[in-house]
């Protein structure tokens, strides 16, 4: 177990350093912060003066070191627009994003678990075909369009739900459903294929032979084992889930990290963009690590295989 943990931690460190290099190079190698900050009619001397002032005439690795050592202490510089530290701005917007992500995950499980189990138990039945169709359609659905259609139907036409905003449970309904619809197809497929695989195993036959009720076989013996791949893949897909939350937020004007980042990108406010990128990556990587460790604890085979 200890070796497994160490290996996972080393991988985490490598990924975090990689992401920070990526975030750094987005601005410093592809773009040029000085031209972005100075007015267009600024002269050559002005340009050189600012370049020196911001420490951008030093070698790239010195600049990266400065960025990284600041970032470790939570210092990503001040926002070029709002007069506040970028770190504070991003952290303040974190809770709505996390709530939305959790709500979306909940909705996805509510849709995917019953349908996936039914499809697995009654293979090639009407339910199974329906699930396959739903999964294929769901994967093709652009959720920003789904969100807008929901707004047009439920907010504009029927006036049942608020089109945007944050605070009450009504505000959660459409965004959570939207995100849930994004995640449900893959979850449903995983539940179905995982359960089918487990149902064919020897210990299920043993349990049946012992005369255990079919209901208990499915719930206690099969489902628990089928959960392992579902949890693993969902954990590894956490980045995609956040990506989905990102898209959902922009449709419903949800006051989370995504709307902040998109606004920052429009304003070319790079300290905020960099901070958001690094913090989101850190969250994703930590979730992946936690999931890996939990799964490793449950199932010794994975520990050995990884």
């Amino acid at each position, binding site marked *: 177990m200890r070796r497994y943990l160490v290996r996972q931690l080393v991988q985490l460190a490598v990924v975090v350093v990689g992401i920070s290099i990526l975030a750094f190079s987005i601005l410093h190698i592809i773009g040029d912060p000085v031209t972005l900050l100075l007015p267009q009619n600024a002269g050559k001397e002005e340009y050189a003066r600012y370049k020196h002032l911001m420490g951008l005439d030093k070698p790239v690795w010195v600049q990266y070191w400065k960025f990284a050592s600041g970032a470790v202490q939570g210092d990503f510089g001040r926002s070029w627009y709002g007069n506040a530290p970028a770190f504070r701005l991003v952290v303040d917007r974190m809770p709505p994003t996390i709530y939305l992500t959790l709500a979306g995950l909940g909705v996805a499980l509510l849709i995917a678990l019953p349908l996936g189990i039914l499809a697995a138990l009654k293979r090639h039945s009407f339910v199974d075909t329906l699930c396959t169709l739903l999964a294929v359609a769901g994967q093709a659905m652009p959720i920003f*369009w789904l969100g807008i259609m929901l707004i047009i139907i439920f907010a*504009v036409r029927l006036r049942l739900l608020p089109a945007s905003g944050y605070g009450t449970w009504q505000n959660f309904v459409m965004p959570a459903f939207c995100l849930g619809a994004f995640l449900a197809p893959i979850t449903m497929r995983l539940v179905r294929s995982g359960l089918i695989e487990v149902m064919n195993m020897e210990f299920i036959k043993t349990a049946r032979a012992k005369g255990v009720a079919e209901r208990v076989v499915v719930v206690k013996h099969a489902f628990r084992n089928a959960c392992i791949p579902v949890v693993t893949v969902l954990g590894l897909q956490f980045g995609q889930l956040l990506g989905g939350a990102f898209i959902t937020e922009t449709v419903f004007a949800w006051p989370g990290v995504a709307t902040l980042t998109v606004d920052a990108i429009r304003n070319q406010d790079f300290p905020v963009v960099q901070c958001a990128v690094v913090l989101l990556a850190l969250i*994703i990587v930590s979730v992946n690590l936690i999931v890996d460790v939990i799964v490793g604890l449950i199932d010794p085979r994975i520990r050995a295989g990884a």
Partner: protein
Amino acid sequence: MTVGSGAAVGPAPFDAAASPDTAGAGWRRLLRLKWGVGGAALFLVIVLSAVFAPWIAPHDPLLVDIRHRMAPPAWMEGGAREHILGTDQIGRDLLSRVIWGGRVSLLVGVSAVLLSSTIGVLFGLAAGYFGAEVDWSIMTLINVMLTFPFVLLALAVIAVLGPSLPNMIVVLGVTGWPLYARVIRAETLALREREFVLAARALGMSHARIVFRQILPNLVSPIVVIATLQIAQVIILESFLSFLGLGVQPPTPAWGNKLGEGRVYMLNSWWIAAFPGLAIFVTTLVINLLGNGLRDWLDPHMKL
């Protein structure tokens, strides 16, 4: 060839079970593929209508018809007969814009996928074939890229480079490769130990010749399947970027930017947002059906 006969010598229960009624099995498989065939046919229609947009579209997509601004679809009350799907906020024909918009999405989808599959296949082959440090570095790079939400990465890069069609193709192409690399690496790792590769090595073939002449031809099926399915994903991503105003800029007709404009007018004119989005949905659905059908047809056991 040698591999095939070698497998036949050993006990091959699956082959024996499948061989008796080959014609019947073929028909049944084709029937199961009907969704794939249907998807392919519809996809062809979409591609043709995009290619021949200037001849098919009833109006010029940029032509402003001030008398019919925000006209609803023809079947609704107040709809104009010459604008079947209605018009947008300055009276441009929506159907024409949707037909023309397909050009941007398909162009971006296909070019980005060509770019990312080339990069991904090269990296995957290198990682799987050479192993050791090469494998470790490439896998680390893949892990970094895969942990990160694709959307955010593309957005950040577009923000620096500026929104334009070539920039978008490059960004979507360069961010999309890890998916191919991961699959190709795993397949190459398995192929590397097979007899025909060992034989090629014993014959003294160069690494490049073994990789491209012996290994790569075996990987065409997974590459084709992933690439097809990825076109749909790239189209969704491209539309999202355009929807945010960070992709294809108006007045160039694209599904994404029309959807973004339509959002502003959704209180009164739902059709401006509805139809471009529907076009995205139908196109990606059809491509997914085609991709799934291809997978079943090429190799039903493929794990993708």
